[in-house]
């Protein structure tokens, strides 16, 4: 039976998840002023699209999902790949928690987030994981709608501040740093892995999910960069959270400034991203490691582990920095996306046998 949830919800969820990683930037991801930033974004999304093609083909040809071939459990290769996906997803969850913590502690709380933040975020996350994939995807569509309206309001409010003199006709300012910047930007995508895992079983991968996710994410990221560049100019290089600064600068008269709404939206986006990663882990765990009640409890344990790890990363940056450097090379993303097609192929052969 085909699942009720359409591709629009999945594309919206993936786009919300990706754009969150852009807005809630970490200290070493400072945006720099220059036209190269636009080039980096376009090349990064082109690379992501290239990575998504084999993933999409593999998911489409797998029928029951990339982990569905052969036995439900067993097999060294399957266990190895399951472990690899699990580690990747767990790192993604920890990084998401780290971003959410950094964003809220630098903005609305101006210090460590209060216990209410953890209570609210944890309860919403557990609720999303408990309810399952479909409600989470529908909630993501609502968040995407709110975000689209928010972007529209910010753009309209900032029109008087936009100065196109701050743009100049060049694509590359520093050729040496370009490849590293593109890889760093691409590494913010963990969505291809989520797509590969979630599009299994009854949920058929729609043809337009990947183009829509990449197109929307790229367009929003470019718009955010355009606004930051044309409103702040050289100042954008010194801003910790450029998008928060944009929403602080947007004056819409009635509400004066809308940075409070901005924080609410990003917290919701962080919950969606954590829930997607937890639900993806549920699929991996159910296919590779556990069954029954264990499979149901796995995403809850995963979510708790992800948030706990994020707090550990926050408290001890020395722990997270080597991992983030490794992630910034895109090797983990390449490993996960490149391994999906052979994994599916092996699964299909075993199924036939």
């Amino acid at each position, binding site marked *: 039976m085909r699942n009720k949830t359409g591709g629009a919800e999945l594309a919206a969820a993936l786009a919300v998840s990706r754009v969150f990683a852009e807005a809630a930037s970490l200290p070493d991801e400072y945006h720099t002023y220059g036209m190269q930033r636009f080039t980096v974004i376009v090349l990064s999304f082109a690379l992501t699209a290239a990575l998504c093609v084999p993933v999409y083909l593999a998911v489409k040809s797998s029928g029951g999902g990339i982990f569905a071939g052969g036995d439900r459990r067993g097999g060294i290769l399957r266990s190895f790949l399951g472990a690899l996906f699990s580690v990747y997803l767990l790192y993604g969850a920890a990084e998401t928690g780290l971003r959410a913590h950094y964003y809220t502690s*630098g*903005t*609305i709380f*101006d210090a460590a987030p*209060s216990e*209410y933040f953890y209570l609210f975020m944890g309860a919403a996350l557990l609720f999303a994981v408990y309810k399952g994939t479909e409600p989470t995807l529908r909630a993501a569509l609502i968040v995407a709608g709110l975000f689209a309206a928010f972007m529209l309001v910010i753009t309209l409010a900032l029109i008087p501040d936009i*100065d*196109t*003199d*701050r*743009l*100049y*006709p*060049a694509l590359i*300012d520093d050729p040496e740093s370009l490849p590293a910047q593109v890889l760093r930007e691409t590494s913010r995508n963990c969505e291809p892995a989520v797509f590969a895992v979630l599009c299994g079983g009854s949920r058929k991968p729609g043809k337009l999910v990947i183009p829509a996710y990449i197109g929307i994410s790229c367009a929003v990221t470019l718009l955010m960069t355009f606004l930051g560049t044309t*409103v*702040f*100019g*050289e*100042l954008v*290089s*010194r801003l*910790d959270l450029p998008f928060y*600064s944009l929403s*602080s*600068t947007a*004056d819409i008269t009635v509400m*004066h*400034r809308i940075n409070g709404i901005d924080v609410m939206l990003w917290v919701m986006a962080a919950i969606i991203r954590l829930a997607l990663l937890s639900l993806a882990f549920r699929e991996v765990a159910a296919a590779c490691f556990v069954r029954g009640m264990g499979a149901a409890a796995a995403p809850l344990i995963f979510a708790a582990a992800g948030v706990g790890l994020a707090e550990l990363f926050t408290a001890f940056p020395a722990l997270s920095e080597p991992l983030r450097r490794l992630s910034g090379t895109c090797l983990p993303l390449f490993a996960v996306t490149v391994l999906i097609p052979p994994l599916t192929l092996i699964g299909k052969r075993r199924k036939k046998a």
Partner: protein
Amino acid sequence: MKKLLLPVLAAVLMLSGCTAHAELNELAIAEAIGIDRGGDGYIVTMQYFNTDTTGGTTAIDSSKPNAVTVSGSGSTIESAIESLSYGCGRSVMLGSAGLIVFGREAAYDLMDSLSFAASHYSGNPRAYIAVSETTASDILNVKFSEGNASVEKLEGMMKNAEALGMSSLVMLHEAAEALCCPTESVVLPLLKAVDAGSELTEEGSTVTVTGAALCTGDRLTGTLPPEAVSGLCLLTNEGATCEMTVKLRRKDVCLAVYGTKTKIAPSIEDGALRFDIRLSADCKVVSTQLSDPYGEREAVERIAAAELDSRVLLLLKAVKLHGADISGLSYKIRSYSPELWRSVSGNYREALKNADYSVSCDLHLERFGIMHGSGERPAANPSVTFQ
């Protein structure tokens, strides 16, 4: 699930008062902040909204002052605000601050001071920035009684000064951006507190905009005359306005200039940077002693264009003297030719000092006023009697 919804909603509504929160009358909602240097640290003066003025039957109780001024000192701006908060017994809320005034001495390390306000999570990037001729506390101790907030009057004065071409209006994010550019230069409105028997305040004092201060890097380099500030407004603000009076055959013609458009073409000539600036604008006659301004349109346009020329050149003289890019020329160079920018960016300040500037203004006189002058002004005749 639906059974749970009602208790959750009820809990949200009824229990939210149990969490930590601040009442309005416990907050010092900053309207304006003044930053001065004192000893080894800073003195921060703050004007905050007086919550006692919220009337019982009307929104505002005008019998009480609408703002309270307090000050605190500390080794950093943050610690000075903490001291101020302790002194006034309220939590300081900076998000609504509409004006930040720097004392003459504090303007020496403007970027450090601005970074505080810009990086503060609740800092208002749209707050206006100004410099006091003396100390910031002098400005903030002037409390205008008219209106809901004292600072509204100051903001209004500064906006009007900009419309007349007397001063440039600069927001926090614009000042911070200008200080991030290669020559770290910004022009800020210069304020002065005067005792003028004004009815705007109970004490009779008021604030005037006396011109503009040029801050370069970590120095308050000097002040710009009003004509140079007018040149800056014309050069940087698309559609800027200003008023000016020119003389044609010893007769005054007061003009309002509007709809300005600027085109700047940078180039390198004989190894030196060169800017060809073309300014076009429309204008109208506000008042004139000419009996036939329409007939003398071309002459008025020529003289007025020469006046605009001189204003822009006066500004460029300051740019050349200090090597201070106060009109965003670096962006113009970059958008015109990134290669040219790469060739001068290494030593941009010196390049500006040695640059050649050519200015040509084109003014179009659109409207000629409702009443024309009467030609020669008649001499006063005391013998005229009324019948």
